[in-house]
Structures are given as C-alpha cells and as structure tokens.
C-alpha cells in the first residue's frame, strides 16, 4: 500500500501532532466517522452487504448521542434516497449509503437527486450485480449511474475514503455546484479491511465545511416563501435547466481541486487533482486504474521501473466530472495507454476504456482495454506487472489496439 507523504508546508507532519487522532478503521467505519464529523443532520439508509457496517456504526453514533442526526430506518433503498431528497429540500445535510442492487433499486431516485440538484452525499460500496449473486467488488453498479448528474469519486484506500467523504459535503454544497456526490469504495478490499486512518480535529472540520442546515439556498421548502419543486416543464424550458447542471459539473472540476487543496492545508493530505499521475512524465506506457487496484498498479510501476521499463500509472479519482484535461496532459509522453476496467458494458466493452479512448482519440495513440477483477476476482501486483510488460511490448513493436484482454480468464473451462 502506497504511503502518502506529508506536505512540506505542514511542518508538524501529517495533520499536526497535537490535533490529529488516528484509528485503525475499515473503509466502512471510515465513512461512518467522516459522516459523524461532518455533522450530517439526516441519515436514511437500508442495509445491504457490504455496506451494512456503515449504517450500523452511524446508528451507534446517533444512539450514543455522538451524532445529532435524525436516523430514518427506511424500508427500502428507493425510500432511502427519497427521504434524503426530502431532507435536502428543507436545507438539511443528508447522507445515505448503499451498494449494487440497492443502488439499482434506488436508481430512479438517484436520478431525481441529480436532476433536482439536491446536494446529498452517498457512500457506495462497489459490488457486482446479479444474477448470479455476488457480494464482491465490481464497478458496474456505480458506473451505471454516471449520467445522472452525480459527482463520482473512487477511493484507493481507507484514508482516502475518510478524506473524500468530508470533502464531498463541501463540494456538493458549493454554490457553483449544488449537485449530489458519490464516494465509492471497493467491496471487502476497502469496506471490510482495516488500516490506519488519520482524522483531523472536529474544530478543523467545522471550519472546513459550511454549517449544516438552514442554508440560504433560494429553493428550500418554506411556507413563508412558497415554491414548487419539479413541476411539469415544457420543451420550451427544459434544456436551459439541464444546461445549468452541465455547467455545474464543469464548475465542479475547479471546486473539487479547490476543496482538495483546502483539505491539504488542513491535514497535509492534498487532493488537488482529479487524477493522480504517478511516474507519467517520461512514461512509455501508462496504465489507467480506478479504485483500490490503483495502489497495486503503482507498486507494479515501481517494480517495472526498476527493470528499466518506463511505465506510469494514472489513478482516475473522479469518473464524473470526467478529468479530460488532466488525462490528456498526463498521457502526453506515453506511446500506449492501457485501461484496466473492473466493469464491462455488454455489447460494447470496458466503460472507462471507452471514455478514455474517446478523450485521447485525436492523439491517435493506441488505448488497450483490459477487463479484470469482475465479481471480485483479485487483481494482483503481478497482474499489473504483466499488463505493464504487455503494453511496453506493444509499444515497442508498434502494435495497435487489440480486442479487450480479459485478465486471468480461465479460457479452458469455457465451452
């Protein structure tokens, strides 16, 4: 696991000696602690593996009086998001969490939140969709919602999960954004695996985030200023409303960077880029990874560099807004790009691959698709080493893009 170096500007090290606390937390608990520190006011959630310990921990916080929130133990995920929308419409800070089928069941309301511009934060533990049933990690559930107006983050480790959840509230509630935010973490790899998480002081978080609730948003529900949300809109007006959302998502790029920089000033951990470009400056081959496997990709890059192979790694932190400019910049020196998709769009190919390829289309560089880790199959450092080697080989031989390579596929059992 890659260590994050403390910023030079923070001479006390990570977060400052007096104020930092650290716990060994699973990714799920990291979410729960971040929700508590963010002073969320309404939580409405339904349990689903592997998110359950998020909602259990938050329930504990609420009942112990550590988090002063209304906890609605809803009877379905669809109701969970509906309740969050209701709460957000009154100006309250709302949160929910789900995974896989829960997210799909909630789909209609996920769109309602995105298109209605309700700044809700949701943690999604990425999990494969059935049938057959699988509880392990895959990114299709989250990526299926990439069009819905949500800002979507993928976390690499539990520290990032914690940090992102806090930043999410600031980003969502920013006047130039006002869109909901998804913080995603891979099933079991992050959600149930514990590692040290450094947490800032409550006072710092209170300063970092706007005060919860009672926002002066012009559209909150209030009998003293009666407004109707979301009534029928004719074609005459619809496009302009959607344009505003498109513009907000563009604004989000800057807001995310700014929020990440501010967070760094507070904790020493900077998140002021939409991607993490690792050893890409002089890379011949660049591997693009999303989520927890990004860490293994970076380890593989270190190994390959020691072997004299110029491999770099790009970790896509956000899927939406898609980091077009940063991606193009980071791929400047590469002769070939490989995208590792922990997802598949049946009838097309890797989803992230498609988006990367269209972003880099005019560079005419080959973008090779790798499909790996579906249904939670491990993607190891060794797999990334092989991927890196393969890409270098393709670059040296001038080989163009091949059909998607399914990593570790047991071809021999397929009839």
């Amino acid at each position, binding site marked *: 696991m890659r260590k994050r170096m403390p910023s030079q500007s923070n001479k006390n090290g990570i977060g400052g000696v007096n104020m930092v606390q650290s716990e060994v937390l699973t990714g799920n608990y990291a979410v729960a602690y971040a929700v508590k520190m963010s002073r969320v006011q309404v939580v409405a959630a339904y349990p689903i593996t592997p998110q359950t310990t998020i909602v259990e921990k938050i329930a504990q916080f609420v009942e112990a009086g550590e988090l002063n929130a209304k906890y609605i133990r809803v009877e379905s995920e669809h109701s969970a998001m509906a309740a969050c929308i209701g709460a957000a419409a009154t100006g309250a800070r709302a949160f929910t969490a789900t995974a896989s089928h829960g997210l799909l069941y909630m789909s209609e309301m996920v769109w309602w939140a995105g298109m209605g511009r309700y700044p809700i934060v949701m943690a999604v533990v990425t999990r494969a969709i059935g049938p057959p049933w699988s509880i392990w990690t895959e990114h299709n559930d989250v990526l299926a919602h990439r069009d819905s107006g949500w800002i979507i983050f993928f976390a690499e480790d539990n520290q990032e999960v914690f940090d992102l959840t806090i930043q999410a509230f600031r980003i969502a509630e920013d006047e130039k954004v006002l869109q909901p935010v998804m913080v995603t973490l891979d099933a079991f790899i992050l959600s149930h695996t514990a590692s040290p998480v450094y947490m800032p002081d409550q006072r710092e978080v209170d300063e970092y985030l706007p005060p919860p609730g009672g926002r002066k948003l012009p559209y909150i529900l209030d009998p003293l200023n009666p*407004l109707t*949300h979301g009534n029928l809109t004719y074609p005459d*007006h619809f496009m302009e409303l959607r344009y*505003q959302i498109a513009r907000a998502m563009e604004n989000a790029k800057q807001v995310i960077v700014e929020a990440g920089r501010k967070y760094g000033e507070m904790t020493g951990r900077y998140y002021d880029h939409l991607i993490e470009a690792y050893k890409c400056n002089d890379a011949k081959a660049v591997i693009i990874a999303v989520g927890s496997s990004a860490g293994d990709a970076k380890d593989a890059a270190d190994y390959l560099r020691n072997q004299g192979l110029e491999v770099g790694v790009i970790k896509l932190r956000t899927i939406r807004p898609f980091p077009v400019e940063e991606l193009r910049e980071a791929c400047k020196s590469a002769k070939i790009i490989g995208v590792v998709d922990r997802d598949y769009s049946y009838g097309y190919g890797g989803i992230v691959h498609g988006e990367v390829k269209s972003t880099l289309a005019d560079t005419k560089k080959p973008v090779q698709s790798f499909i790996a880790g579906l249904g939670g199959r491990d993607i190891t450092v060794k797999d990334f080493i092989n991927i890196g080697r393969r890409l270098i080989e393709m670059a040296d031989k001038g080989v163009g893009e091949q059909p998607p390579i399914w990593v570790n596929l047991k071809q021999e059992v397929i009839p």
Partner: protein
Amino acid sequence: MNKIPLTSISKPTRGAVGKTGFWRSFKPVIDQSKCVHCLQCWLYCPEGAIKRTGSNLMTVEVDYEYCKGCGICANECPVKAIKMVLEE
C-alpha cells in the same frame, strides 16, 4: 429577459395555465335577488372562482376570468339561484 432559477422551481401565480375562463361553454349566472348567502357555491367551486365581496364578504360573484363552467355551483345551490347559460 427574465432569468430562470438555478433549478426547476416555480412561483405561485394566478392563471398558471392562462385565463381558464376560455375553457367554458356554459357560464354560471347568479340571480342575486334569489341568493340566500349560504356560501355553498363558494365552498364547492373547485377553482376558487367564486369571489366573496360586499361589506361583510357574504355576497358572491363569479370570477369569469377563471371560471371553467363546470356547473357545480348551479347544481349545489339550494335555492337554484344560479343558472348555466350558453356562452355567446
């Protein structure tokens, strides 16, 4: 040019779909001499198109700008003081 709000919110407006008086074929005509000021027509009008006027707000008048001509007022009036008349 009026700017749109930053999301799909609407403001309370009389005549949200226009002057719905244009919808009707028959219009209610109140014979004030027969009216007993029971306010049933005011109560039952689905549109709120019966206005209460007069010094004690007990006189009823039809708001022809918005009255859709449904005829409920005429049907419910206990003294049959309201007639539905074909619009010219």
